[in-house]
C-alpha cells in the first residue's frame, strides 16, 4: 500500500464528522486538545479583562469605578478563572494534544473520557461566566473561606455558583488526570521504556498523579460547604461542633499542590523546548525526573504555610516552614539543570527562547519571595498584603504563562503546518515582560507599605497612590502585550505560508508526522531505541508514513493502537478504540443537569439526573463488549498481540485503579475531617452519640467480607470455563447488605443539623451507600454480560475491573461502619 492510499484510508477511519457537527461527536485527541486550548485561552482573556478592571479600580484612591459588591465579584472571578478555567485546562489541553504524538501512540487511553472531560469543563466554566454576566458571581475570594462564605454571611446564590461550578469543572480535571496517567504508563510506542520517555511525559505523569491526589480534598470541602449552605449541616460552624479551619486545611491540601500542578507542566515545556533552542540535549535528565518527583511529594507537605497566622503552635509552624524551605532544593536543581543545558549548548534567540528567559528572570524572583514567606516571622508581617499577591503572580505568571507562551510559539508550526510571517511576537514579548514587572514589582512595594490584598479602595493619606498608579499603568502595558501575542498568533494561522515539517530540528516524536497532524496521528507506530528518536533516525517520519512501523495496514475500519509494559515498553496488547459518538456530550449535559438542579434547588430532578448518568454509563461500557473471543492480532514486525478485553489488567482496570486512587484520597480527607472535628473543633462532645448496633455492624461486615471473596471465586470459576453467575449474584448480595448497613447509619445518625458529629456520620453513611450503589450497578452489569454471552474464560477483563470496585467499596464500607459503631461498642 502506498503512503497516500494509507493516509486516505486512515483518515476515513479516524476523522471526525465534517463541519460543526464534528465538534459535538469527536473523540479524537487532536480535536479535543485544540478545543481545550482554545476554550482555556478564551477564559484567559476573560480573566485578563477582569485583572484590568481590578487595576482600574486601584489606580486612584477612593475610586468610584466599582462598588465593593461588584469589586468582590471581579477579584474572585479573576482568581477563579485563572486558576481553574485557564491554568489547569491549558495543561490538560496541551497534554491531550501532545502526549500521544510524543509517546508514539495514535490516541490517549480513553478517547470518550477526553470528550466527556472537555464538555464538563466547557459547561461548568460557562456556568460561572453566566453568573458573572448576571451579577451573581462568587464574591468570597478564590479560596472561599467560611464563615464569610457560610449561608449566614453570604446568603445569596453567588457562593453556590463557585462550589457547584468548580466541582463540575473538577470532574474534567480528574478525567484528564486518569487519562494522562494511563496513557503515559501504557500507551507508548514499542521499545519506549521509562528511561526513553520524553521529559514532558514524565512531567505530565507526575502532574496527573498530583491532580488525582490533590483535587479530592477540595472537592470534599466544596461538598461539605454546599451541604452546610443548602441543608444546614454545620461542618464549619464553631457553635455546632464544626470548625472553619477545617475548610482551610481541605482547601490548602489542594491549594498548595495546585501551585506545583501548574508549574510542573510548564517546567515540562521548558525542559522540552530549551534544549532544542540551545541545539543540545537536556542536562541531567535523571536529576530532573528525580527533582520533579521530589517536588510533587514535598508540595503536599506545605499546606499549612498558608495558615501561619491561625494560631498554630511554634512546632507545627516549624514543620511547615522547614518543608517550605526544602522545596526550594528540587526547584533549584531544575533551574541549575536548565542553566547547565544553556551553558553546554548554543542558545539561539528565537521567540520561544525569549519567553524562556522571561520565565527564568521572573520565576526565580517568585521563588525567592516564596522562601521569604516560608519563614514564619516574615510571613506574619506580609500575610494578606499585596506582597503575597505580587509573589503568587511572579510564581504563576513566571512559572506558567511565560513557559506556555514559549510552548505556543514552539508548537504553533505543529498546530498549523505554517511558518511565522509577521514578527509582532518579539515586540509583544517586550511589552509583556516590561508590563508584568512594572505591575508586580510595584505591588511588592505597596504590600510592604501595608496595603491589604482585596481592598476595593484606599485613602490618599495612605501613601500608596503613586505606586498603585504605576502598577496600573504596567498592567495595561502587559495587557497590550498579550493582545499583540493574540494578534500575532491569529496572523500566523491566517497567513498561509507553508512551513517545513520539523522547523526546529527537534528530536522528539511529535515532529515525525505531517503538520497539522492528521486525525490518525501516526500512519504506523514507531519502534523506539533512543530518547531522541528523530536525531537517531532522521528519516523516521517518512518510514512511518510508508507503513514500516507497527499497525501500518488499516483493517476492518478499526481505530487501532498498542499498549506496552510499563517499565520495558515491550508490546503487551492490541487496543481497538471506540469511534465518534455524541455520548460524552450527552452524558456531560446530564451531569450538568445534576449540578444545576443542586444549584437552583430543584431537588426533584436530582435523582432523574443521577439515573440518567447511570443509564448512559451503562450504555457507554456495554458498547465495548465482545460477542465472541477476539483472536490474536498480527501487529507488524512479526508480533501478534491479544485484545485488551482478554487480559487481566486491561486499560479499564488501570483507569479504575487510578480513579480509585483519587477516590481513596477523597475518603481519607473525609476521615481526616472527622478526626479533626472530633479532636480540634470546639463544641465537642456532641449532645447525642450514635447508638451502635451489633446487628447492623455484623450485617455490613459480613457483606463487606463476602462480596470480594465471592467475586474472587467467580473469577476463578470463569477462568476454568465454569459458570460464574451464581458467585456474582452472591457478591451482589454482599454489597447490598453493606449498602443497607450504611443506609441504616444515615437513617439513625443523630440529627445532622444539630451538630457536626451527626452531619459527618450522615456524609460517611452517604459515601458508603453511594459506593454500594455504584458497585451493585457494576455487579449487575457483569451479571448481564454473563447472561448475554459477553464473557468467557478468554474475555475476562470486566471481572477484574468489577473486583477492584467491589473490593474498594468493601474496604471503605468497613472503615465507615467501624468509625461509626466502634466508639459506642468499646466500654
Amino acid at each position: 500500500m502506498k503512503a497516500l492510499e494509507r493516509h486516505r484510508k486512515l483518515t476515513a477511519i479516524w476523522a471526525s464528522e465534517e463541519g460543526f457537527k464534528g465538534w459535538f461527536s469527536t473523540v479524537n485527541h487532536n480535536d479535543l486538545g485544540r478545543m481545550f486550548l482554545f476554550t482555556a485561552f478564551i477564559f484567559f482573556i476573560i480573566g485578563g479583562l477582569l485583572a484590568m478592571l481590578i487595576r482600574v479600580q486601584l489606580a486612584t484612591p477612593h475610586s468610584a469605578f466599582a462598588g465593593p459588591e461588584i469589586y468582590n465579584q471581579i477579584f474572585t472571578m479573576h482568581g477563579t478563572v485563572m486558576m481553574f478555567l485557564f491554568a489547569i485546562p491549558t495543561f490538560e489541553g496541551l497534554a491531550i494534544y501532545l502526549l500521544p504524538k510524543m509517546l508514539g501512540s495514535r490516541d490517549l487511553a480513553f478517547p470518550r473520557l477526553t470528550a466527556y472531560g472537555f464538555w464538563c469543563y466547557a459547561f461548568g466554566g460557562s456556568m460561572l461566566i453566566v453568573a458573572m454576566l448576571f451579577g451573581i458571581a462568587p464574591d468570597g475570594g478564590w479560596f472561599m473561606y467560611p464563615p464569610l462564605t457560610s449561608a449566614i454571611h453570604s446568603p445569596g446564590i453567588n457562593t453556590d455558583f463557585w462550589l457547584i461550578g468548580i466541582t463540575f469543572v473538577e470532574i474534567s480535571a480528574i478525567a484528564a488526570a486518569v487519562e494522562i496517567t494511563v496513557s503515559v504508563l501504557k500507551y507508548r510506542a514499542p521499545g519506549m521504556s521509562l528511561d526513553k520517555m520524553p521529559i514532558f511525559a514524565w512531567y505530565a505523569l507526575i502532574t496527573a498523579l498530583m491532580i488525582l491526589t490533590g483535587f479530592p480534598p477540595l472537592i470534599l470541602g466544596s461538598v461539605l460547604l454546599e451541604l452546610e449552605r443548602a441543608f444546614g449541616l454545620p461542618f464549619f460552624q464553631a457553635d455546632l461542633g464544626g470548625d472553619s479551619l477545617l475548610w482551610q486545611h481541605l482547601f490548602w491540601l489542594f491549594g498548595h499542590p495546585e501551585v506545583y500542578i501548574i508549574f510542573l507542566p510548564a517546567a515540562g515545556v521548558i525542559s522540552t523546548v530549551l534544549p532544542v533552542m540551545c541545539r543540545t540535549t537536556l542536562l541531567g535528565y535523571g536529576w530532573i525526573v528525580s527533582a520533579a518527583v521530589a517536588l510533587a511529594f514535598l508540595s503536599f507537605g506545605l499546606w499549612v504555610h498558608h495558615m501561619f497566622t491561625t494560631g498554630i503552635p511554634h512546632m507545627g509552624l516549624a514543620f511547615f516552614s522547614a518543608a517550605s524551605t526544602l522545596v526550594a532544593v528540587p526547584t533549584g536543581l531544575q533551574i541549575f539543570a536548565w542553566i547547565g543545558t544553556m551553558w553546554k549548548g548554543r542558545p539561539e534567540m528565537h521567540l520561544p527562547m525569549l519567553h524562556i528567559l522571561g520565565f527564568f528572570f521572573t520565576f526565580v524572583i517568585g521563588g525567592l519571595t516564596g522562601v521569604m514567606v516560608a519563614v514564619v516571622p516574615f510571613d506574619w508581617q506580609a500575610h494578606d498584603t499585596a506582597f503575597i499577591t505580587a509573589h503568587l503572580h511572579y510564581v504563576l505568571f513566571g512559572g506558567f504563562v511565560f513557559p506556555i507562551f514559549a510552548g505556543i510559539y514552539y508548537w504553533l508550526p505543529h498546530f498549523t503546518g505554517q511558518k511565522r510571517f509577521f514578527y509582532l511576537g518579539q515586540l509583544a514579548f517586550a511589552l509583556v515582560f516590561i508590563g508584568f514587572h512594572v505591575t508586580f514589582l510595584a505591588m511588592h512595594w505597596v504590600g510592604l507599605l501595608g496595603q491589604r490584598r482585596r481592598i476595593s479602595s484606599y485613602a490618599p493619606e495612605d501613601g500608596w497612590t503613586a505606586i498603585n498608579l504605576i502598577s496600573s499603568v504596567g498592567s495595561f502595558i502587559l495587557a497590550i502585550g498579550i493582545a499583540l501575542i493574540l494578534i500575532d498568533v491569529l496572523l500566523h494561522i491566517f497567513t498561509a505560508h507553508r512551513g517545513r515539517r520539523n522547523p526546529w530540528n527537534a528530536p522528539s516524536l511529535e515532529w515525525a508526522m505531517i503538520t497539522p497532524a492528521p486525525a490518525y496521528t501516526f500512519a504506523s507506530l514507531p519502534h523506539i531505541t533512543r530518547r531522541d528518536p528523530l536525531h537517531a533516525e532522521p528519516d523516521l517520519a517518512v518510514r512511518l508514513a510508508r507503513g514500516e512501523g507497527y499497525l501500518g495496514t488499516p483493517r476492518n475500519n478499526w481505530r487501532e493502537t498498542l499498549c506496552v509494559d510499563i517499565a520495558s515498553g515491550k508490546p503487551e496488547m492490541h487496543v481497538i478504540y471506540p469511534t465518534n459518538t455524541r455520548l460524552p456530550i450527552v452524558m456531560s449535559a446530564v451531569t450538568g443537569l445534576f449540578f444545576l438542579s443542586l444549584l437552583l434547588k430543584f431537588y426533584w430532578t436530582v435523582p432523574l439526573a443521577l439515573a440518567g448518568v447511570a443509564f448512559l454509563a451503562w450504555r457507554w461500557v456495554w458498547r465495548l463488549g465482545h460477542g465472541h473471543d477476539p483472536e490474536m492480532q498480527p501487529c507488524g514486525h512479526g508480533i501478534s498481540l491479544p485484545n485488551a478485553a482478554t487480559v487481566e489488567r486491561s486499560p479499564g482496570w488501570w483507569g479504575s485503579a487510578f480513579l480509585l486512587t483519587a477516590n481513596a484520597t477523597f475518603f481519607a480527607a473525609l476521615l481526616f475531617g472527622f478526626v479533626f472535628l472530633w479532636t480540634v473543633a470546639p463544641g465537642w462532645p456532641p449532645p447525642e452519640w450514635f447508638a451502635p448496633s451489633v446487628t447492623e455492624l455484623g450485617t455490613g461486615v459480613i457483606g463487606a467480607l463476602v462480596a470480594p471473596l465471592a467475586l474472587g471465586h467467580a473469577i476463578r470459576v470463569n477462568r476454568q470455563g465454569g459458570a460464574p453467575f451464581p458467585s456474582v449474584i452472591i457478591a451482589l448480595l454482599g454489597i447490598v447488605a453493606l449498602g443497607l448497613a450504611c443506609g441504616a447509619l444515615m437513617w439513625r445518625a443523630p440529627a445532622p443539623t444539630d451538630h457536626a458529629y451527626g452531619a459527618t456520620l450522615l456524609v460517611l453513611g452517604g459515601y458508603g451507600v453511594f459506593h454500594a450503589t455504584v458497585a451493585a450497578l457494576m455487579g449487575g452489569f457483569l451479571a448481564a454480560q454473563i447472561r448475554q454471552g459477553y464473557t468467557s474464560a478468554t474475555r475476562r477483563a470486566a471481572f477484574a475491573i468489577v473486583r477492584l470496585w467491589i473490593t474498594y467499596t468493601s474496604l471503605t464500607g468497613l472503615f465507615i461502619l467501624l468509625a461509626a459503631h466502634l466508639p459506642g461498642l468499646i466500654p
Partner: protein
Amino acid sequence: MTVILRILIAPLVWLVCFSAVYGLHALACDSAFGAFAGSSTARIVLLVAFVLALALQLAIFWYLHRPNQAAPAGFLRFVTRASAWTGLVATIWTLFPVVALSTCT
C-alpha cells in the same frame, strides 16, 4: 508498576509520617487530652514518632540500595535512589523541630 512504586515509596512514606507527626502534635497540644497535653510525655511521644519515621526511612533507604533490589536499568536505579535520599533528607529536615522547639506554645 513495581518500578513506579519503588520510585514513589520513600517520599510517600515521608508524607505519611510527616502528616502523622503533625496530627500527633495537634493531639498532644489538645486540652481534651488532659494531663498529656503539652507535658513532657507529649514531647517523648513526638520524639519516639520522629525516631520511628527515621528508622522507617533508613530501612527503605537500605532496601532500595541493595544490589538485588535495585531496578535493572541504570536510569531507574538512579531515580529510585534519588527518591530514597529525598525521603530520608525530608524526614530529618522537616521533623527536626520535634527536637528543637517548644511543644505547644
